């Protein structure tokens, strides 16, 4: 699957700040072959980039600027709270998330970009910094394998911390069910965007959570706490759907406002298709309207 995905590179929709040359746009003008713009000479500019031909024609000094390409820092943020341990008809949500994170890390490192992993919540929260080293991939994969779901979601706190911690522009991919307070969540997503990070949000949901079809009374045991609730699902289904749809709509709307790449994924979807769509659409967006 990853081999097929590699045909489509993982690109960012925003210029990245990298330490080495790469395939991603940089906010800085550099010496690549891709022309960017002309601007008037100011004292102190490098005379090597003065366009003499324009000077000859117009008797003015113009600096010829080119796009600078740099590498990508991809920070994968994986929610390992207990709610990620939900298993619907087929797939466990955390397993799905792990495979998604592993695939993205592989793609990034394979194309020479740096990949890091933040595991939020879980039995042992950890943070693996973004590195380009191919050996780093194995570290990420081992960490993913060891990640166990546990505890309440502290996603918003960690995302705020990350927003501050990641100094350079990076691609931040958050994989979670986002079952937390919507206002706080939107706040931290906004924070990330404010730091000029390219933000991709994968919300993993089970069809069961979206359809809420139960023929008989059910005792719902909270995955993140000791509470349980016995109810007749048919009686509250309408209200439940209203609540969850309202939440999803607000999240989607918020991401749209902050130009975050929001992707709602159901666990019965094919992971390859999900990632393929993700990569393709990002590439398309890049070619049509580079930011």
């Amino acid at each position, binding site marked *: 699957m990853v081999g097929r995905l590699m045909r489509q590179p993982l690109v960012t929709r925003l210029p990245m700040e990298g330490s080495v040359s790469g395939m991603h746009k940089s906010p800085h003008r550099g010496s690549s072959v891709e022309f960017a713009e002309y601007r008037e000479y100011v004292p102190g500019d490098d005379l090597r980039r003065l366009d003499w031909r324009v000077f000859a024609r117009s008797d003015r000094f113009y600096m010829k600027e080119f796009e600078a390409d740099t590498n990508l820092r991809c920070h994968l943020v994986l929610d390992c709270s207990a*709610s990620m341990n939900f298993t619907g008809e087929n797939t466990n949500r955390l397993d799905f998330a792990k495979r998604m994170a592993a695939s993205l890390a592989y793609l990034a490192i394979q194309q020479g970009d740096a990949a890091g992993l933040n595991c939020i919540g879980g039995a042992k929260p950890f943070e693996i910094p973004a590195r380009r080293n191919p050996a780093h991939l194995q570290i990420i994969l081992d960490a993913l394998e060891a990640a166990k779901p546990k505890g309440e979601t502290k996603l918003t706190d960690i995302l705020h911390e990350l927003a501050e911690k990641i100094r350079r522009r990076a691609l931040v991919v958050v994989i979670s069910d986002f079952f937390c307070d919507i206002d706080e969540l939107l706040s931290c997503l906004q924070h990330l965007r404010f730091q000029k990070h390219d933000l991709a949000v994968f919300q993993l949901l089970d069809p069961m959570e979206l359809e809420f079809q139960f023929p008989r009374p059910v005792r719902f045991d909270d995955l993140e706490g000791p509470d349980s609730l016995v109810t*007749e699902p048919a009686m509250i289904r309408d*209200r439940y759907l*209203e609540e969850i749809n309202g939440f999803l709509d607000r999240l989607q709307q918020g991401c749209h406002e902050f130009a975050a790449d929001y992707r709602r994924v159901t666990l019965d979807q094919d992971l390859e298709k999900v990632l393929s769509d993700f990569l393709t659409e990002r590439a398309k967006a890049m070619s049509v309207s580079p930011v």
Partner: protein
Amino acid sequence: MTFLQPEILWALPLVALPVIIHLLNRLRHRPRAWAAMQFLRAANRSSTSHAKIKQWLILLFRTLAVLALVLFVARPLAGGWIGWALSPAPDAILIVLDRSPSMESKTVGGSATKRELALARLSEAARQFGESSHLILIENALREPQQIAGASALAGLSTTRPSDAAADLPAMLQTAFQWLVDNQAGASEIWIASDLQGSNWLPNDERWQSLVAQFEALPQPVRFRLLAFNEAEEANASISLNELARQTRSNRPELDLSFDIRRSDSGEETVIPIAVNVDGGGSQVEATLDGQSLRWRQRVGVAPESRGGWGSATLPDDGNSTDNTAYFVYGSDSEYSAVVVSSDDANARFFRFAAASRKDGKFNPARQVSQNEAATTDWETDSLIVWQASLPKGETAARVRRFVEEGGSAFFFPLTADDSGSFEGFSWGELEAAEDDETFTIESWDESEGPLSKTEEGLRLPLNELEAIKRRSFLGGEAVLAAYEDGRTFLSRKTIGRGQIYFCGTLPSDEWSTLGDGFSLVPMLRRAMREGGRRLNRETMLECGRLNAVDRAKAWTSVDSPEPKNILSQAGVYRNGDRIIAVNRPESEDDRTVMDADSATALFGDLSMKLWEEARSREDRSQGEIWRLVLSAMLAFLLLEAFLILPDSRPRGTAKEAIKS
């Protein structure tokens, strides 16, 4: 509210079934680990009150539906306006139709018979209920409930045509009651059409009390309406056979026929032409009727070689055409015999010789049996029992009664000793002895009919010459046939079934009276023997409607008429193989004593009984069956429940559909 099937109410606890199922369902919940608890809690919080109300409503409607189902099966009845509004028509209308011969009388000035008038009015009244009520006909001849298609069909039914069977109103109402019970009918009405003839209604019959009690005990309301035709009738005369005997006199076989002719008007002396038909040969004879009734005797010769045949006597057409003919069949010479139950040989000797039989030209004294032997002795071929013993009790009394009911005669004489027993209302009293040189003499006796009537030649029995030294008083009897000078009864009679019981207060021995001279005793007993001969004809001379079950099953063809007749409901002469029988209307039908409407309605006690002419009131229709209401309520509850559990029809896609879109 009352119920037609209250035992179904035992199923009322079933109304808790929906609640129990609900609770069991709640207990059977499945555990489910859930992540999206925040939405679940919010949904549960916001929809709790609404969902609970909805849930309680669903439970309520389910419970009410089960309750309505139980009530529906229990068939509730409601009174007052509800009952009237919801059950305007009775579930069943049972038409009890008296089509006995007396109903063929025409009212004064009218051209239609009472039966025809009754049918017309019943049809008219039933027409408004034809669609909504079951119409059941119960008539007197067959007495079998018959469902009829509609009011218009009533007059065309063969079972509403004239019949020669008597009506037994208590039995007909018992049939109606049984139909109501068997068919579990709802609110019903019983329409009785009758001329209130006393012999049909039997107002003193004990069955009335039990009938009223039975109808009162019915859970469903039953209302009675009486269509009475007891007004004056057109002048009418009827004829019925009293006695038939074949005797050979001077080697010429003859039929001694005795008919009773009655007429309704007590007018002047009238000569009535009577057509007598024997074996198809007819003759016209005239009888002079002076007064209301006449016992008309007629002797008719028959062919010497004839071993049996049939005949009839017919009056001219009058106000009632069904009682103008009496049919008879005859066999070989009639032979009568008697049995004397006595241990008093001195007196029994007189009885044995007085009631001797004649066989093969020789006189044979009647046989004598003791009281103990009377319980088992065979008196199948006898027509008279002379009883001079303690009054019969127990099974013996039942045997004697059966003997009389079949048409036999029973003559009771006193014992020399006191007897404290009683039989059929008779009981012996004190022994009285005449004072010295004095005797008890008979002053008056019935010479018109009975055992002391005049001879065929018109001669009086010499009863005035009878002298009694001793006599025993007695109580009981319906008619005093002879009385002493001091007014004490000498001879009394009671009719039971087709036969008679006689009680005579003295004995033929010399210590008691001169009865042993024979001038009175012999004709008295011989006439009783002959009268009792009816018993011997019980197999060939039947009352219409009294055919036994075995004979009912046989195929009978009419002999007296070329038209086919129904032996169960029509008088006539019928043949089945070699057997020939005569069927006549019951004698009781000629007794035109009628009751007044108030007396008839009083028989129904506290039951709802109204005369036809009385207007229907709301009260009449109270206690109607309201199963339709209950059924509608049940359906409404089920519909409401279904509406509540319907999924919301508003277009609300799931979140998953939103993703796909």
